[in-house]
């Protein structure tokens, strides 16, 4: 127990307490922290347009990355669950990209989505698309490019949904099939509701990951020398303010705001789960 307590204190509790204190100070690393009360928080909400830009980008990211992740992971898992004979090979095939280090994958995608010599745009030209997107070089398309990059690593979500599909009781579907219900309707009205706990889990973890999103956007911004801030997220803002401009107190306040946002959204999601999440071992009706 003691090692865990020590680890928790040194690596979690104490840094959190120090960071909370720093968020109420003017602290630039170069001088000791100076108490300023709520000044950092007021500054963030009233005088920092980059915060609002970063927040918009982050919320966009959370919404669309969760949607994309759900759609692709459920579809892939459903197909794999049906083809159990070849499941092992394809499961490995779909999971492999998730094993590649994030920065390496990001740099690879910077090439894949290069508008002039990348294979995606070469293919789009080949099939007759006259003006394919400029992806990471165009602020209107850059986040969509990041979304494509993120779906490459859906292996982890796919595995969870696959486990969910394999765990579904067969009886309900067999009865519905005997009653003449179509495959699509069985999928929508039986399988998906039974999978709602997994969907809920994916959404919650997607919210956490979305608010923590940093690496891919930061690396791609450097690769494409993006100055338009279309790939500027909340964690990017925290990093820039804290480690580039040395406003540690300000960055700490941003960190706590990020934490509160994550908490609020998570609580709201938990409150709504009674309305749409079906836990079949609790005897609730579909």
């Amino acid at each position, binding site marked *: 127990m003691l090692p865990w307590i020590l680890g928790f204190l040194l690596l979690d509790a104490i840094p959190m307490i120090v960071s909370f204190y720093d968020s109420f100070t*003017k602290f*630039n*690393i*170069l*001088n000791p922290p100076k108490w300023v009360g709520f000044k950092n928080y007021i*500054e963030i909400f009233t*005088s*920092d*347009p980059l915060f609002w830009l970063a927040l918009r980008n982050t919320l966009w990211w959370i919404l669309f990355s969760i949607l994309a992740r759900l759609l692709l992971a459920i579809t892939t898992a459903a197909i794999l669950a049906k083809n159990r004979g070849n499941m092992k090979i394809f499961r490995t095939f779909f999971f492999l990209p998730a094993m590649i280090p994030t920065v390496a994958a990001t740099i690879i995608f910077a090439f894949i989505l*290069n*508008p*002039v*010599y990348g294979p995606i745009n070469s293919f789009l030209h080949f099939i007759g698309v006259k003006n394919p997107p*400029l992806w990471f*070089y*165009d*602020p209107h398309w850059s986040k969509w490019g990041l979304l494509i990059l993120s779906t490459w690593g859906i292996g982890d979500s796919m595995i969870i949904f696959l486990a969910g599909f394999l765990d579904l009781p067969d009886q309900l579907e067999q009865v519905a099939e005997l009653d003449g219900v179509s495959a699509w309707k069985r999928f929508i009205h039986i399988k998906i509701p039974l999978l709602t706990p997994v969907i809920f889990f994916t959404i919650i973890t997607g919210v956490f990951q979305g608010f923590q999103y940093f690496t891919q956007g930061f690396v791609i911004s450097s690769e*494409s*020398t*993006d*100055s*338009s*801030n279309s790939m500027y997220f909340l964690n990017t803002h925290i990093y820039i303010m804290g*480690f580039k*401009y*040395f*406003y540690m107190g*300000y960055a700490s306040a941003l960190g706590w705001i990020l934490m509160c946002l994550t908490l609020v959204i998570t609580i709201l999601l938990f409150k709504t789960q009674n309305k749409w999440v079906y836990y079949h071992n609790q005897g609730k009706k579909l």
Partner: protein
Amino acid sequence: MKNFLKTMSIISLIFGVGAPVFSNWIQPAFATSSVTVWFPWSQGDTTPFKAAIARFEAKNPDLRIIAKYGITFDKSLAAINAGKAPDISFDFGVDNVARYCASNTWINLNPYLGGKSGFKINDVFPRSTTVDLTYKSDTCALPLTTDAFALFYNQALFNKAGISAAPKNTDQLLEDSIKLTKFNADGSIKTAGFVPWMGYYCCGWGASTVAKIWNAKWYESPEQTALSSDPNWQTAFSWIQNFIARVYGNGNFMKGETKLLKFVAGAGDEWGCSQDLQSGRTAMTIDGEWRVGYICQSDPKHNVAALNYDVAPFPTSTSNSVAYGSGLVGGIVTGISKGAPNPSGAWRFLKYLTTDTQSLIEIANQLHTIPSTTAALKSKQFKFDPHLRTFVQIVQNPGSGYKAPSVIGRQDEDLINQLMTKLQMGQSPNVKKAVEDTSSQINSAIKMSN
């Protein structure tokens, strides 16, 4: 006899093999003090520093230099903050020097410069390398080596277009760019005359370059930016939009912007042989002196042609023509840490390292930069590629320098770069409001810092 020879052999072995080992023990016994220096360089780049240390210790046997390599300045900063500072550390760039001066992260060197072992800065360094190292009369850093920016141009494309000399002002830059720019059959850009675009390669085009070209002021006072009050900024932004419209858009800014965005997206690897200047995709570009070292030799096997190029100072605006010949200059700086265990010893080594001609030339050659003292720049020992001559002249031009020092480091430059990006993408139709918004962001940042 046998025993005598045996004894003499053993003694010879001890002194012959052991002496180098023992000397490391003996010297510290003679050295009365030591100085710790954290260098950010590693591997082969440490060679000239080790040589400089050896020469210094030979001349100063009472002072031992404890050198640690591969320690970047953020780690030095953390150590200074933790009270475990090295005596001397280095930063790449002059952006944060004002901040270090204001917070005493690096100590004020004025007492040392004015003391018995001091010297007059202007007697040793060209003005361009030190003008930005002082904040409110305190000098807290000295230059080690420096970078400079100039206009690289493709001589072969110039000859083909009938242009006899590099443009000296922004009017000539525009006219020459129109002559040099070529389009493909589908209207896309084949060869760009000049690309005034934020995000086109790393360092040549941005707020610092623009301020130098148009002589735009950075600050009215240490607390107030001049971005919205100095009309030269507005003139610069209007020129850029007009340039994009006329050179690439046939008079239409959005057309030009769309074409240029696509052109920039296809830029070749900045550090390889497909870089746009090298490949002839761009006729003129503003870049640092390191570009000379990256120009590739002819390599038919890999489809690389030799580049016939030259270098000139970058053009200035027509109202700033007196400044032609000067440029953007700034490089590696070094200072003595707050809480340094041996500041007087540190000063002795700092003075040596930043003023010794042989050391500076060896360091500049190793790091592919330019030495920062007048003596080193004029020394016959400083042998350099002929293309670097322009940079050497720029460094010695009294009008050269970097941006005005500020307690917010390079945050002001980053905010103006973001403004320039919005303007070049046509995202801010109301230019005046966009400029005012950025001004108030800069002023807020200064207030937050104070």
